């Protein structure tokens, strides 16, 4: 019986639950013994001119082996153009957390003492924090520019877009800045070998991309750089490739002629690792009173933070602007600005949660305006199953979707009519605890980067399998998933299959893990490699069995080769086939799966909240989710990915914000201040199954890593607004903290 679709407990766990993982700060490699410890001195100012740096006292501090500023570096530029980011700050700092100096000491505990002695004189400059200030441009972040706008895309809008609509609703909404906050902060260790090669252990989602960045930054050939991703304690998009710090550490290791190790503190992590989201969206929706939407416009402002690192984010939001709906007219445009805040980059969903939040809020505002049930308005406007493949006006080519079916499933599971009845009862009784029901339907894009992935399968002499994947799991359980895929195809027991990843010497060519790409691309790659191995094995087995390859088959039950219809005549094991292949041309296939095009997972979520209308406190009592990513390999990890996504999505809706004061001081830069969602704030999740395959890759699968984050945020936000609808509230910006909710209630009451 095939293991596909069965619940398989992870092979990764044994080590993690006994000795703990080997994360980058846990490495006790011989080559790192005696390595210096590193810390970055970071700007405490959002925007300031550096009038002087005195490192003399720091250099004399106990245990110090090196103190470096931009003046000491002999690296080429990190980027081009006026907004290029320096390795270490030169003349000006542009956000709190920007690295200014690198300090290295013999002992870890000497770092903080020495770093404090680096004396930097800052002359404050006006800080640009808000969208409006950035656009006004009274203060510019970069000399040689005439605006803080660094990118525009799409538009102009047509003045006549909404002509003829019976109802037009417009609103400005915020998709706030949040911190990815993987539980393991960033870290790296670097050592140059006697052979002149650099080895860097890096907490990363993409060792091979990191290798390219290290080689490029250092000005060396990629072949002399080896990057190893050890166990990685979460990434969520914020550990793609190598951070600039890693290049500086490798540079310092070369300069000092010794190993260097670095692990950042949480305070650094919350200001110096990239943040996510940070969009302001102007949404306009128009249509008929029967619920038909005729036009939708999304005008995005993207805060890029101090240095523009993620140009793709606002345009990806534009691409996905129309969501699951068949709107006749869609307009989307974006403007990206720089501010004196931490740079923005990918965070679980990266551009798609923002698109979904915008269109789902728009649908709810439209539904409220025409007095129609929000679920019904969605039903009227869905793209129908028979319309696929469906190309949206913004250029996305959706593969498959059963949007209405997903909505029906969650509404049924949530017992939607009963919820509406309870809501009505509470309203009739003037209950201080209001019930809110939020519905969201979403589609997203996975494997959207257009690249492929590598996969290699070796059949070893003993008949066991070693597979190499370019995917770079860091919690997703992909090793187990790929073992299942291979066991299913090869008929070899799972305990005889090992999956290796994350070492550039073992897997030279790869892209790695982000954008929920790994199963559809990395999985397809190892599956394709397995298929090639099977074809060659068929020839070899035929040779041994003295039969025609056409007559030889792989018995998946026994994991051996036999002549079709003549099983009694004997069989040939994988080990024998591998032996026949010989050492000169071992039984192995190494493929690049490049033909997989993006897929479009979708789903529907229902959130139920209780809101105390006297305090503004919101409690999520139920979250019912259908997340359709095609056939499921391992329901255990598939559900796990959804759970994690739901929590992060709910966290954004209710709690999390990376916030700054007017001077650009981060006010949520510790985990005591940043409202990282905890167990007590979440309900048990109710997962509903839905399976719609795609034809766009070998496995028929779509990505599941980000989907539940994308669907849950607007469902919860809508539920909060829905709870207060009878009081006249039409919108509450995220996060829906007690203060904001209370304010919204009060504002609505005063407006009456």
């Amino acid at each position, binding site marked *: 019986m095939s293991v596909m679709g069965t619940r398989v*407990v*992870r092979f*990764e*766990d*044994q080590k*993690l*639950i*006994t*000795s*703990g*993982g*080997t*994360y980058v*700060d*846990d490495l*006790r490699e011989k080559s790192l013994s005696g390595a210096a410890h590193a810390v970055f001195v970071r700007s405490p100012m959002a925007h300031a001119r550096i009038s002087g740096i005195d490192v003399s006292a720091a250099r004399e501090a106990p245990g110090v082996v090196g103190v470096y500023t931009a003046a000491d570096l002999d690296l080429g530029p990190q980027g081009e153009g006026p907004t290029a980011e320096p390795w270490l700050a030169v003349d000006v700092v542009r956000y709190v957390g920007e690295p200014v100096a690198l300090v290295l000491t013999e002992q*870890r*505990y000497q770092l903080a003492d020495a770093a404090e002695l680096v004396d930097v004189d800052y002359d404050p400059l006006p800080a640009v924090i808000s969208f409006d200030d950035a656009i006004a441009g009274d203060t510019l972040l970069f000399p040689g520019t005439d605006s803080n706008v660094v990118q525009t895309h799409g538009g102009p809008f047509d003045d006549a877009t909404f002509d003829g609509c019976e109802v037009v609703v417009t609103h400005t909404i915020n998709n706030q800045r949040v911190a990815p*906050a*993987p*539980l*393991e*902060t960033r870290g790296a260790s670097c050592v140059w070998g006697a052979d002149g090669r650099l080895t860097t252990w890096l907490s990363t989602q993409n060792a091979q991309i990191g290798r390219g960045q290290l080689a490029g930054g250092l000005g060396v050939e990629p072949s002399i750089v080896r990057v190893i991703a050890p*166990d*990685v*304690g*979460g990434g*969520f998009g914020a550990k793609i490739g190598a951070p600039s710090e890693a290049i500086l550490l490798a540079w310092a290791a070369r300069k000092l002629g010794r190993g260097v190790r670095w*692990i950042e*503190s*949480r*305070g650094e992590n919350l200001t110096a690792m990239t943040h996510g989201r940070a969009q302001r969206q102007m949404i306009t929706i128009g249509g008929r009173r029967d619920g038909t939407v005729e036009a939708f416009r999304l005008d995005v402002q993207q805060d890029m933070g101090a240095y523009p690192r993620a140009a793709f984010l606002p345009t990806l939001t534009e691409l996905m602007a129309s969501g699951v709906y068949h709107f006749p007219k869609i307009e989307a445009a974006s403007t990206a600005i720089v501010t004196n805040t931490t740079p923005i980059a990918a965070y679980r969903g990266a551009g798609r949660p923002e698109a979904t939040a915008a269109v789902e809020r728009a649908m709810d505002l439209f539904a409220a305006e025409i007095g129609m049930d929000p679920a019904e308005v969605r039903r009227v406007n869905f793209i129908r199953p028979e319309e696929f493949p469906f190309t949206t006006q913004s250029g996305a080519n959706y593969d498959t979707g059963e949007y209405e079916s997903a909505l029906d499933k969650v509404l049924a599971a949530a017992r939607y009519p009963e919820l509406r009845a309870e809501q009505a009862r509470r309203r009739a009784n003037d209950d201080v605890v209001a019930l809110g029901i939020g519905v969201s339907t979403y589609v997203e894009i996975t494997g959207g980067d257009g690249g492929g992935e590598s996969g290699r399968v070796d059949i070893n002499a003993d008949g066991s399998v070693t597979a190499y994947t370019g995917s770079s799991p*860091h*919690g*997703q*359980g992909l090793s187990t998933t790929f073992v299942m895929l291979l066991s299913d195809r090869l008929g070899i027991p799972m305990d005889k299959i090992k999956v290796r990843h994350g070492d550039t010497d073992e897997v030279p060519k790869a892209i790695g893990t982000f954008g929920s790409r790994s199963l559809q691309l990395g999985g397809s790659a190892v599956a394709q490699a397995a298929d090639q191995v099977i074809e060659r094995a068929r020839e070899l087995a035929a040779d041994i069995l003295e039969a025609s390859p056409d007559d030889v088959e792989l018995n998946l039950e026994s994991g051996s080769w036999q002549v079709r219809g003549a099983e009694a005549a004997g069989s040939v094991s994988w080990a024998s086939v591998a032996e026949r292949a010989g050492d000169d041309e071992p039984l192995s296939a190494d493929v690049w799966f490049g033909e997989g095009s993006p897929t479009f997972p979708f789903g529907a979520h229902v959130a139920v909240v209780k809101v105390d209308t006297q305090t503004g406190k919101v409690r999520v009592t139920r979250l019912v989710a259908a997340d359709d990513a095609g056939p499921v390999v391992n329901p*255990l*990890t598939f*559900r*796990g990915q959804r*759970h*994690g*996504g*739901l*929590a*992060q999505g709910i966290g954004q809706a209710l709690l999390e914000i990376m916030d700054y004061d007017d001077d650009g001081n981060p006010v949520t830069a*510790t*985990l*005591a201040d940043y409202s*990282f969602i*905890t*167990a*007590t704030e*979440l309900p*048990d*999740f*109710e997962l509903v199954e839905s399976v719609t395959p795609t034809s766009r890759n070998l496995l028929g699968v779509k990505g599941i890593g980000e989907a539940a984050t994308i669907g849950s945020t607007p469902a919860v936000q809508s539920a909060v607004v829905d709870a207060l609808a009878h009081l006249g509230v039409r919108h509450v910006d995220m996060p829906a903290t007690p203060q904001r909710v209370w304010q919204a209630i009060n504002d609505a009451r005063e407006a009456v």
Partner: protein
Amino acid sequence: MLVHIEVNGRATEQEVEDRTLLVHYLRDTLGLTGTNVGCDTTSCGACTVLLDGESVKSCTVLAAQADGHAVTTVEGLSTDGELHPVQRAFREQHGLQCGFCTPGMMMATVSLLDENPKPSRQEVRDALEGNLCRCTGYHNIVSAVIDASGQEVGG
């Protein structure tokens, strides 16, 4: 200063800087890297260990304070290669993904079940509020604790 700390049933005796945190004593002095550090503010619980059987966040305990006491870390949870029920339950219920919070989460669980052997799911949620996980959404962690307590895991 010289500290004597029993770690996972084994006596240890080491000269440490006065300001040495217990977590660094475990990780750097003894090389027991299973216990992790996830924040600077005693917020995340990744460093949770048992001190004389009760859970503490070892980033907020000086090694000096543990002098003369007994510490249990994740490395000391299983006995004779036999997994502790909490370890077994975390694996069986998929209560971990990246694994970084897991050692602390499991130690907090051991302490929780010691105080409340048959907790409800909500009691588990409330008790583990001081242990953060970014991967699992906590659902399966709660299931793992329920499983480890010998109760039926619903849903």
